């Protein structure tokens, strides 16, 4: 009974869980197209500025999360140049919204996703793509029908890394969009808050368990998907 009480989650905590899942999922999905593009460019491109792009992609990994958060705040905040631009032209607002949390998580997970996808692209046998071209498939078709299915395991690996990172990320998020319950307070931020006050340990532990369970479930699902994808590819 006592144990169950301890495990019982408050409404605010449920909100944080739902928000975390939403933020992580959106971050993962929204960054996917861009990550694919970046990975293709890095794996296949031979353009000037490739190293620059590569560096840029890795930046969120290299910088302390707080710095990334500050940079996001300066760029995408309500007063930031990009933030102003997006708000005016697309109506998209990041500052102090869950969308901002998703942006922060997406940015933090971006290098992980790009690396995974890039590694898969580099492992694709170019001769298959050539064969498809001789059968009449344009580069876009080749990508959609040959490259994409072959790199699926890498894409899935990248997505799960990004998702897991998003579940654990709080430094950049809390710095960028603060820690507003119901709007920007993700599970990780809630855990962090618990660690900041006396007696918060058990609350932190409880939420950590929730976070781990959710991420593990996602991980298992991704493994299963990746295995299925790999099986299709190897035909076993």
């Amino acid at each position, binding site marked *: 009974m006592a144990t169950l009480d301890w495990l019982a989650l408050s409404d605010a905590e449920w909100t944080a869980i739902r928000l975390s899942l939403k933020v992580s999922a959106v971050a993962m999905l929204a960054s996917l197209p861009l990550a694919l593009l970046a990975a293709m460019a890095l794996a296949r491109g031979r353009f000037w500025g490739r190293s620059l792009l590569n560096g840029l992609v890795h930046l969120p990994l290299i910088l302390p999360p707080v710095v990334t958060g500050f940079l996001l705040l300066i760029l995408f905040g309500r007063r930031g140049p990009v933030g102003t631009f997006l708000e005016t032209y697309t109506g998209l607002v990041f500052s102090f919204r869950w969308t901002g949390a998703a942006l922060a998580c997406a940015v933090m997970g971006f290098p992980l996703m790009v690396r995974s996808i890039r590694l898969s692209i580099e492992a694709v046998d170019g001769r298959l793509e050539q064969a498809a071209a001789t059968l009449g498939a344009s580069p876009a078709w080749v990508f959609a029908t040959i490259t994409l299915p072959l790199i699926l395991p890498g894409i899935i690996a990248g997505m799960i890394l990004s998702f897991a990172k998003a579940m654990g990320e709080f430094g950049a998020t*809390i710095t960028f969009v603060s820690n507003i319950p119901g709007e920007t*307070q993700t599970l990780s931020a809630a855990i962090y808050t618990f660690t900041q006050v006396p007696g918060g340990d058990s609350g932190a532990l409880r939420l950590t368990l929730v976070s781990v369970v959710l991420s593990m479930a996602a991980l298992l699902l991704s493994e299963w998907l990746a295995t299925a994808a790999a099986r299709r590819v190897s035909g076993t």
Partner: protein
Amino acid sequence: AEKVTVFAAASLKNALDAVNDAWQQQSGHAVTASYAASSALAKQIEAGAPADIFISADLAWMDYVAGKTLIREDSRSTLLGNRLVLVAPAADARPVEIGEGFDLKTRLAGGKLAMGAVDSVPAGKYGKAALEKLGVWSSVEKDVAGAENVRAALLLVSKSEAPLGIVYETDAAADPSVKIVGTFPESSHPPIVYPIAILSESTHPEAAAYLDFVRSPAAKPLFEAQGFTVLAK
């Protein structure tokens, strides 16, 4: 109606949550609090955060936002105070006589002195100032382990990684695995204060009422229950 949004230093969470509940019950108005490091909150306010109230963990960040005229000067006041204490693991709770030139070095016995990072964390800055004032800083400077925040410093002591730590009384009191072995004289460091103010951009009609409630006698026991000294009159 829109909620009143409070940006508050993370260490206030327990106390302020209770105060907010009380206000909500009393006034019927909703309030929401975002707890983070004072530095992050200050920068967010600078970036146009939709907050009504800011409670900083030290004067420096309140001064920072004040310097950019982001707060209503007339609403600013010091809300809370705290005391700085020396803690040791419960297993080794020999009291320490804190005074001019006291022998901290020997008591450390080669171990680390856990405290907030002395350049950045408020508690660390106060601690350094106190030790300097008491003339022992130079003897232990090399032994300081600067934690990211007071809670982390406390953790180092409670897990016996460090034999001594300098933390706030509020944190120390709530942790049974550490014992307060001495309290720093108030005179040895700048006053430990939590300033509060309404932000210039706040348009919330209840912001002032909330501020008044937080400073009211009704809130006082809730803060004191967490070990804070209430400075508001």
